[in-house]
């Protein structure tokens, strides 16, 4: 226990910040990130032209048509997708960490994203080869396929890592590693047998990119987001109590099995649709909830909505960077989040060593 005592000694006495100002502050941060992100990219739209292009204020100059085209057909759908995916991945991370009582859980890290990506890649190959007559069947199925793939992975992971109400952190991380490897082997096999066109579509998932974002793809994300927001008030307290352990949560009155089922389905849905739209983007689900837990506390009633907002900020910012760094070319966003997130994860792992018993 001594390691834990020193860990918290700097901030031993805590007062939680109030919920509404916290959420308002994060909301302002998101608005700022969105505005900045709307102005940068291969085609610059400086601020004084952004407002007219959005229909606010008087149009000035000949570039308005070009600006509007760039904004409405390319940049805005991309921003909306980035914000929603950031929110979904951060909430999926927070939810999974609550479910497994483990701050190191992340859907991408433990193979849930890979499971979704494998199912999506399988859908591309199968629908293209077997169902060639139904041109759009495959693409429409992608979010659903990715959801099912993620669901199977999450459930398998849960069954492997949990026994009689206790979850072993070591088994959980190692099983996640094995499941990710298995899903990646499956993706590798599909790459091997795919033709050129299928290969291009599959490669898209391996890197993770928002460059293909459209309004139609943004619409695919909405149901998962809405489902999570509806479930949030019902799930927040049970998730807090699950931190005590499954038996103890049951003693305190939580319908544990139902809570776990809902959490597993939501994690899978949020991860699955994100993977279907922009491929595997890791570490958002670890970074965001962790920063929030140390600043606003671990209570899920505030942690989940705050994660959604900060996740959106992080993803929009990361996407802006992805467009700027090598402009006019783009860096795949999954590479950026991994470059920031992996060292972050290592620091977290070292600090939590005592806690997780590794």
């Amino acid at each position, binding site marked *: *226990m001594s390691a*834990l*005592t020193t*860990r*918290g*000694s700097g*901030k*031993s*006495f*805590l*007062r*939680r910040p109030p919920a509404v100002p916290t959420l308002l502050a994060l909301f302002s941060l998101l608005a700022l990130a969105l505005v900045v992100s709307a102005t940068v990219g291969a085609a610059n739209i400086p601020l004084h032209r952004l407002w007219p292009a959005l229909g606010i204020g008087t149009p000035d100059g000949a570039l308005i048509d070009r600006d509007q085209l760039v904004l409405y057909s390319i940049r805005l759908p991309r921003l909306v997708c980035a914000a929603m995916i950031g929110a979904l991945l951060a909430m999926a991370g927070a939810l999974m960490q609550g479910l497994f*009582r*483990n*701050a190191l859980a992340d859907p991408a890290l433990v193979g849930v994203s890979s499971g979704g990506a494998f199912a999506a890649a399988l859908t591309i190959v199968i629908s293209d080869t077997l169902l060639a007559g139904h041109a759009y069947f495959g693409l429409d199925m992608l979010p659903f396929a990715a959801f099912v793939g993620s669901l199977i992975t999450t459930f398998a992971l849960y069954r492997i890592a949990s026994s009689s109400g206790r979850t072993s952190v070591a088994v959980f991380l190692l099983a996640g590693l094995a499941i990710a490897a298995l899903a990646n082997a499956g993706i590798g096999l599909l790459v091997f047998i795919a033709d050129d066109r299928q290969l291009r579509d599959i490669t898209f998932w391996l890197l993770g990119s928002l460059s293909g974002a459209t309004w139609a793809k943004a619409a695919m994300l909405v149901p998962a987001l809405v489902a999570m927001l509806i479930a949030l008030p019902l799930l927040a*307290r049970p998730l*807090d*109590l699950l*931190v*005590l*352990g499954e*038996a*103890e949560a*049951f*003693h*305190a*009155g*939580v*319908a*544990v099995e139902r809570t776990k089922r809902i959490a597993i389905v939501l994690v899978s849905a949020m991860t699955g649709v994100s993977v279907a739209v922009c491929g595997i983007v890791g570490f958002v689900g670890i970074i965001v909830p962790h920063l929030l*837990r*140390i600043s606003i*506390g*671990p*209570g899920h009633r505030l942690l989940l909505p705050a994660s959604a907002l900060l996740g959106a900020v992080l993803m929009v910012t990361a996407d802006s960077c992805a467009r700027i760094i090598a402009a006019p070319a783009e860096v795949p966003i999954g590479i950026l989040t991994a470059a920031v997130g992996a060292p972050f994860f290592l620091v977290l792992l070292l600090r939590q060593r005592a*806690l*997780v018993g590794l």
Partner: protein
Amino acid sequence: MSAVLQLRSASYRVKDAVLLDQISVDFRPGETVAIVGPNGAGKSTLLRLISGDLSPSSGHVQLLGRDISAYAPRDLAKRRSVLSQHVNVSFPFTVEEVVRMGGEGHADAVSNGLIDSLLDEVELAALRHREFPTLSGGEQQRAHFARTLLQLALGERTHGKGVLLLDEPTSSLDLRHQIKLLDLARSKAREGAAVIAVLHDLNLAARFADRIIVMKKGTIACDGDATTSISAKVMADVFSISAPIRQTQQALPFVLQQDMTILDRP
């Protein structure tokens, strides 16, 4: 008074191993019961049947005349509270937030006054805003006890006198807090709750309990007051220990480790 908890021929088996064998026992409101016995005798399994964690392989466990598995978790939580061993809190909740978890299903305002007095009773008021994982094992145990008492108190407001279950509650506590915790639990029984505790220390059991159930190999070897259950015969037959039984001035039996010799198991 009629029983609040009833076990009727309750058995619990895992594969071929019989952990509990045909247990029939009643627990009444207002009484303190200690469950003692050697390792593997089935004490914790019995407590887990009573708490609704496990369902008996055969037989019945009834709370207030109704099968315990028929209760929804939330309804059950309003009638019985459980203090488990080794509860690990892995996120940085504060002491107060953990105690407040006992008020699940109630408005915060309802819990507030109770939380203040409970933190005083377990002597943790000064640490209420500390991060839970920074507490010592004993302090954590006391905070969990306060959480359990909050749940009991809130449930009793609407559902009548409840059941308080304690699984080796004193294992990580210093002497002062061992006595304090068990006296506090005993006062809940005097107010009408049924309090059932698994204990290892026979002397603590004698001080705490109106009734001591001695378990051996999944069965009840002895069920009675301290004088009945702490006898030279029980010490020899159940614990395989030879020790003279002494008496305090209040005629409570006690045994001293200094007197004990180990008997060969038959």
